[in-house]
């Protein structure tokens, strides 16, 4: 009787959690992205070092500027947001100011990321 647990990735993402939920999702994507990247990357380095075929190919994926834009987002966002989480976790008294914390976080993240993207893209397109 009854519909199965009424939730899917889609319905979950559509929940109007607002700013805090957005940064959570991005943090998760960032962490996941980096973890996968680091795994592949280690593998590639290992293969190159041992002269196994394919290492160079794997390396060329992330030499690609589009990929760099993505992975830089993952690293920078995850790092900044991770710092926010760590601070709030260790000082629960600051939690009532979490909205402000998120604003500050974006204020720090956006300019740095914008400059980085600009440089990466310019370098990427310029050759």
């Amino acid at each position, binding site marked *: *009787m*009854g*519909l*199965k*647990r*009424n*939730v899917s990735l889609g*319905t*979950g993402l*559509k*929940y*109007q*959690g*607002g700013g*805090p*939920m957005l940064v*959570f999702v991005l*943090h*998760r994507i960032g962490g996941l992205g980096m973890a996968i990247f680091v795994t592949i990357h280690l593998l590639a380095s290992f293969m190159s070092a041992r002269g196994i075929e394919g290492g160079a190919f794997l390396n060329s994926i992330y030499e690609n500027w589009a990929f760099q834009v993505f992975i830089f987002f993952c690293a920078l966002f995850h790092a900044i947001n991770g710092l926010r*989480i760590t601070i*709030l*976790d*260790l000082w*629960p008294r600051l*939690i*009532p100011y*979490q909205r402000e914390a998120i604003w500050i976080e974006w204020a720090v993240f956006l300019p740095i990321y914008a400059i980085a993207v600009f440089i990466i893209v310019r370098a990427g397109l310029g050759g």
Partner: protein
Amino acid sequence: MLVTLKIFRYNPEVDKTFHYETYKLEALETDRVLDLLEMVKGHTDGTLSFRRSCAHGVCGSDALRINGRNHLACKTLVRDVGAKITVEPLLGLKVIKDLIVDMQPFFDNYKKVLPWFVNDSPLPADGKERLQSPEQRAIFDETTKCILCAACTTSCPSFWGGEAYLGPAALVTAHRFIFDSRDEAADKRMHVITETDGIARCHTVFNCTMACPREIEITKAIGELKMAMITGKV
């Protein structure tokens, strides 16, 4: 004003799956969404099913997803959500019929944190109350407000992932007792909430705090529990 009300419908005895039904009705700005549901049920479609009792936000019966976010239907006025209103059941629990979900997993999680006062020491010699200063009382005041409506737990992405996660409501209850100076089972409760699917599952998403109709600072309460886990001070 004319309100368009889109409601999630599912009748287990007829339908294979859910669908949405749209109703148009005349309403006042100060009408509660619950009033609208009552109107639809009274005049348009008697089969529409939902829970409600107190009608002023103190019993916790009618937590629903309204315009994509959890609210109590009786504490949400038309003027708060506008003329286009979508009403859906809570996420992460089985839908039994229309807007009614199976609350069992929610209450099961609640029961895991030993939600009752424990003090086996002898009573004060005069037989009167156990003393507690206003300051000690204030520490857990917020978390005594919980009405077990489940708006928080069903807004939490960790709970969507799996109902094994205790969820914010159970943690709020744990907080209410752990920080009560008269209670003597703090260590047992800490044990429960630090196990797998306990507080470590909370990723400070804040959906719970925003959904709580009693305006409990849930994430803060959970944060205090996390601190208690580290320092041992309650």
